[in-house]
């Protein structure tokens, strides 16, 4: 939890914004995920979001659905993702945030997930199908273990609810850019900048935006309004296509290009 706050503080002091790339852990295998994570850290990723595979990812579009299926076919589940986080923590100080659906967390056990996350150096957990109304038990366990329960806010939430979500979230507030599911988009909603400006004015915690963001141009457009930008499907698409050194280089270059517009000055 402290690592996330420190990253936003340090970047803020330099007038920089955080790049938060996402990959599905175990796609195509855990070793590649490990290499990719370190490569992204070296190329400018500030916080890493690690997707936990799930059979029925209902907030995700085809790209991340397919990645999740590939990882499940490899037998990758929550415990493997936690161990991957542990390996990454030993190799890099980059904050790690897990993004996974509620049922695998529930089956593994709320207290056990929180404890194992903390032990493996996980800084936060995003559960996209766990709104605050249902999150009481999980929040208690996560906070007790020192793991940030990160909440999402959506364009449909309305400002009043967004303020409540901002008060409850830890680490940062994850603003969903589109009314929809994950997936790279060539066009973001025209009203998004106004929405972010409005949210920014009312929300004190660090604010990140994600869903659909796929290019350095889009990152540049959104950077002035937020503290961090999440890019997922556009990276996962590359993971689906390439292998080995070629994959590491391509993703590394892409992450560097995404980070550029987020640097200060």
């Amino acid at each position: 939890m402290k690592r996330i706050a420190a990253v936003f503080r340090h970047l803020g002091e330099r007038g920089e914004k955080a790049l938060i790339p996402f990959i599905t852990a175990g796609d195509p295998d855990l070793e590649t995920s490990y290499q990719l994570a370190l490569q992204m850290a070296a190329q400018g990723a500030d916080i890493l979001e690690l997707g936990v595979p799930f059979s029925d990812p209902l907030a995700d579009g085809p790209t991340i659905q397919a990645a999740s299926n590939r990882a499940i076919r490899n037998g990758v589940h929550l415990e493997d993702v936690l161990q991957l986080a542990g390996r990454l923590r030993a190799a890099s100080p980059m904050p790690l945030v897990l993004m996974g659906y509620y049922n695998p967390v529930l089956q593994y056990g709320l207290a056990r997930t929180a404890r194992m996350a903390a032990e493996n150096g996980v800084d936060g957990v995003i559960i996209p199908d766990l709104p605050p109304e249902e999150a009481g038990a999980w929040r208690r366990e996560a906070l007790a273990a020192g793991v940030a329960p990160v909440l999402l806010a959506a364009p449909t939430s309305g400002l009043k609810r967004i303020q409540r979500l901002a008060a409850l979230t830890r680490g940062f507030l994850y603003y969903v850019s589109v009314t929809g599911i994950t997936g790279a988009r060539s066009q973001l909603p025209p009203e998004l900048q106004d929405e972010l400006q409005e949210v920014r004015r009312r929300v004190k915690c660090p604010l990140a935006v994600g869903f659909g963001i796929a290019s350095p141009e889009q990152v540049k457009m959104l950077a002035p309004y937020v503290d961090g930008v999440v890019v997922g499907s556009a990276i996962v698409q590359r993971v689906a296509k390439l292998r080995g050194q070629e994959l590491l280089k391509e993703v590394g270059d892409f992450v560097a290009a995404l980070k550029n517009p987020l640097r200060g000055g």
Partner: protein
Amino acid sequence: MQPDRHGHFGPYGGRFVPETLMPALFELETAYRRLHRQPEFRRELAWYLQEYVGRPTPLYFARQLTAALGGPKIYLKREDLAHTGAHKINNTIGQGLLARRMGKKRLIAETGAGQHGVATATVAALLGLECDIFMGTEDIRRQRLNVIRMELLGARVISVASGSCTLKDAMNEAIRDWVTNVRHTHYVIGSVAGPHPYPMMVRDFQAVIGREAKAQVKQQTGRLPTCLVACVGGGSNAMGLFYPFLHDPVRFVGVEAAGHGLHTGHHSATLVAGTVGVLHGSLSYLLQDPWGNIQEAHSLAPGLDYPGVGPQHSFFKDTGRAEYQAVTDDEALAGFKLLAKTEGILPALESAHAIAWLQLNSRRFNPEDVVIINLSGRGDKDVEAVSAVLSGTQPAT
């Protein structure tokens, strides 16, 4: 019984959905709570149920079936005679009228057997709303007739080729569509499943089955029934029959699909053989592996081919208010044939599970006992599939 403020029946139910949908669920709940008490809305719904759906449906004393089984007196609640051929229309009329009052222009729905898809497409045509139906490719193959019906009614059938290509995957895709188009679209969930307020709302719309049956059985026999029997996939026809008898000394039996047999792992017996978890927006029993991934369900009856179940059924299971048992594909086929030959009624394969349970258990009843079976749908849609299995040209998949 009403769920708590956040839609829980005991520990079950709730709202486990992406944040984008939360405001839509609040809006829906508010609209539903306001309208369903409003006399004008109730009159409108009652009018459609009577004049359009053809309610009340008969409670039919099945004399020959009773004689053939030599057990209790058997009454069939004839939901198969409702417009579109199944109980599903009770709910879609209710939700359609609600959606129109909420100013929604488009209806979406998931469907397995196609009955809920047909019932939603019907109501969309009736009320002048746009309609998209999500259906697994496997179910499109099995229920060709219903696909044609939906298209003739003006709906678009969107095939879903992910996962097991059945009801669960159709529901995933419907939820994804709703997340994207939530501002002008109403999602017509077809069972007492999904996030709050659906389990409560769908139950209330389906409770017309039990209210009618209660009045009819009292009139015909002068007493309450001994036992109610209904098939359970998501559980809407069972809940609709059971709920008005909740506080009466009446036994509830929900019959799940044991598919190829519980020991094979190819079944849909969520309550009999499942464990507790979260799927499609609510906490309930479900079929899953130890890591929380949802397992594929199996049943010859596409409407039962679902790895989850409505949260209030989970509550009934834990409290013992209802008992849940499972019958296999083969047993359901025997029930299908039995009803056809004794009463001249082709039941839906789903409803045939309820017949089959009584066929297997009739000796445990006394001749003066009264059992009501919910004949939730007609079997025309299944004729091709049943004849293929019976003639051996295709194994029961």
